[in-house]
């Protein structure tokens, strides 16, 4: 007879959402509260790892068909290009710009180049964690 971790599978579906939401929150909270691209990215990765733990790798690959190597490259590119932004204006590499933009309805939004930079980091971290874990897992024995 085969048994089945039914309880685990069902709860994970709910919990994964909480964790993912939390990770997005952590990412955005970064500049003013604990968190940021790295922490947010790892949290996202943790949620994904939980999904992989619960279901098998193949299933998740269907659901989340990311190429993590490219995700890393994209993240790095984003971070570098953000840093290069200032160079066009004759500023040193990694010079930051920030501006308060008022959106209708949402209110004031603090737009800063730190955000895309952090997003780049976020992508790299997610890509890193999953690429490493999945590569090892797929190698098997």
């Amino acid at each position: 007879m085969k048994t089945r971790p039914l309880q685990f599978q069902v709860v994970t579906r709910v919990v994964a959402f909480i964790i993912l939401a939390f990770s997005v929150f952590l990412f955005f909270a970064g500049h003013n509260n604990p968190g940021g691209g790295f922490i947010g990215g790892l949290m996202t990765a943790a949620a994904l790892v939980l999904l992989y733990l619960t279901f098998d790798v193949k299933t998740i690959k269907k659901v989340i068909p990311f190429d993590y190597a490219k995700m890393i490259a994209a993240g790095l590119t984003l971070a570098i290009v953000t840093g290069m932004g200032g160079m066009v204006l004759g500023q040193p590499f990694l010079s930051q710009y920030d501006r308060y933009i008022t959106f209708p309805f949402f209110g004031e939004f603090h737009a800063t180049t730190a955000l895309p930079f952090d997003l780049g980091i976020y992508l790299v971290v997610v890509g890193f964690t999953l690429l490493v874990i999945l590569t090892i897992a797929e190698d098997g024995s």
Partner: protein
Amino acid sequence: MLDIVIAIVLGLLSLSILICTGRALIGPTMSDRIVALDTIGINLIGFIAILMIVQETAAYSDVVLLIAILAFIGSVAIAKFLEGGVVLDRGDS
């Protein structure tokens, strides 16, 4: 007054963690250790929550939630590992 209560509670939680650490070290089976570990994680949540009062900051609320999440993932991962060494099923066999 609250200070004293907090000191006592921290002491109790520390004691609790200590006991669990004992179980984690004794075993005898791996499962016992995971149980102990899981419980340490749960106690840690309380511990840090109280530190929020001590340091008068809400900044650790993230830590609290995070530990809850990670304790869960950690326990599950180790448990799965114990079963067959395959933490992630490939799903192609």
